């Protein structure tokens, strides 16, 4: 099944003033899988994410989404294609209510986002769908809370609900469990599992037990290049990977 790749990168390279952060990375994310990107600090994982969503322009290489070259597109265009990312630090709109957070993601489809003369009451038609999404992540009871007042794990859930509002084909999750306690990690892992039933997920993650539990394929990055790729059992026994991880730690 070579053609069921949803996202392919060819020789993806990023240089910052001579420093090569990502060097010739070939990725192939298959549709319907959870694909994890792991590697020691500074391996270039977040940079890859930034390249994929065009938050950074790449120096060399190509990015194909559903077979189409999206290398030169603007970030908002890529998002509208259905490649939606989350961020390392939880990305909510802090001084808006939980409901408004989700609604702002739904709003674009109305096509009235530039209508400064229209009443905000016209947005109320989106409330049922927004509440449905909040239900999915168990946040309905907090719909009128100001987002900044939510505990950290719940902010992550809100972020997921906001992302789902866009009905993305490919979800890019940047360290979804970073900085979380045990309880929250469990909840977010379950949430990712649920979300991935109908979608493809590419995630950067440090927590190896989460990675082992969730992912179908793992790509290990080190110093900007691909070190190994395969299922967890295989990758975790790869000597080069062990050296990059444990050797670097010692």
């Amino acid at each position, binding site marked *: 099944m070579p053609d069921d790749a949803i996202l392919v990168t060819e020789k993806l390279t990023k240089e910052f003033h001579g420093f090569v952060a990502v060097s010739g990375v070939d990725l192939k994310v298959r549709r319907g899988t959870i694909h994890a990107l792991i590697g020691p600090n500074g391996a270039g994982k977040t940079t890859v994410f930034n390249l994929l969503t065009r938050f950074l322009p790449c120096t060399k290489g190509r990015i194909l989404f559903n077979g189409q070259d999206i290398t030169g597109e603007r970030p*908002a265009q890529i998002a509208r294609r259905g490649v*939606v990312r989350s*961020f390392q630090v939880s*990305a909510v*709109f802090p001084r808006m209510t939980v409901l408004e957070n989700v609604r702002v993601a739904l*709003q674009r489809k109305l096509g009235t986002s530039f209508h400064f*003369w229209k009443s905000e009451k016209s947005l109320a038609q989106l409330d049922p769908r927004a509440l449905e999404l909040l239900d999915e992540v168990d946040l309905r009871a907090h719909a009128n809370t100001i987002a900044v007042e939510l505990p950290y794990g719940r902010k992550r859930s809100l972020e997921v609900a906001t992302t789902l509002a866009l009905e993305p084909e490919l979800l890019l999750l940047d360290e979804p469990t970073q900085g979380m306690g045990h309880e929250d990690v469990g909840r977010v892992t379950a949430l990712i599992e649920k979300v991935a039933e109908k979608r493809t997920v590419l995630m950067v993650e440090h927590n190896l037990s989460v990675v082992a539990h969730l992912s179908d394929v793992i790509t290990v990055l080190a110093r900007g290049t691909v070190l190994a790729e395969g299922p967890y059992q295989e990758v975790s026994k790869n000597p080069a990977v062990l050296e990059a991880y444990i050797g670097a730690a010692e």
Partner: protein
Amino acid sequence: MKAAPWVERLGYAILVVAGLVAPFVVYPVFAMNVLCFALFASAFNLLLGYTGLLSFGHAAYLGAAGYVTGYACKAWGWPPLFGIALGTLVATALGYIIGSLAIRRSGIYFAMITMSFAQLIFFLAVQFPWTGGEDGLQGVPRGTLFGLVDLSRNLPLYYFVYAVFLFGFAVIHRTIHSPFGHVLRSIRENEARALSLGYDVARYKLLAFVLSAALSGLAGATKSLVFQLASLTDVHWHMSGQVVLMTLLGGMGTVLGPSVGALLVVALQNELASLGSWVPVITGAIFVVCVLAFRRGIVGEVQALVKRSF
């Protein structure tokens, strides 16, 4: 938490009535001055408070519109409404040009770019033969409204200015509470996230910038009729700083804050006028106290207080 709708409506109704009786309580020219600055600061707040962009060159739109309106009414004998329309149009166009360039950068660089362009406008105002240089454009006729109402008298002019203010304020209020306003808030709150939701952030910022410039122009155009004068004061960078002060003092990101700030600053300047060069020292000191002690501004603090006690 928002106040109940009827409380909000009652509040606005009281303010509207206060505006109607104001010229019988205070000197009408003072009241008109306050209204012009209140509109200017509210327009500025659309950008600073609701989009999160600090422009340090808003004097350009206020001042340029003032000059254009003044010139159209004086040299070409245009009626006041057309003069104001032309001034506002020019400010809108300026906002589009300067905004398109400035929004490519953010933070301090954005502020510096807007400021440089405002300085450019300032020097044009000094150099152009038709602006009157240091003297400014004096003796701008107030004209008659629809050929019927004589605006040279203060009372009819006050109600005209009041109508302009209400119109501008209504536009701002609606913009804040529109689908567009919601996107603006999301950009203010987290720009990268708004981008990742598929919003072309730059285009939203540009529209906000243009709207803000247009309404600042409306304020400046009206002001030039009130004082029958367009002068360098209005394009000077002090003016760009003053509108920041008004907005912060009253409460940025609140609907009424900038108007309260404008009232306070204009009233202070009036009351303290006899102290001469001490005025900027005193307003500066107030600014420092404001930033140190009540960061949310007057209206922001009151809102927080109300929220805490209910």
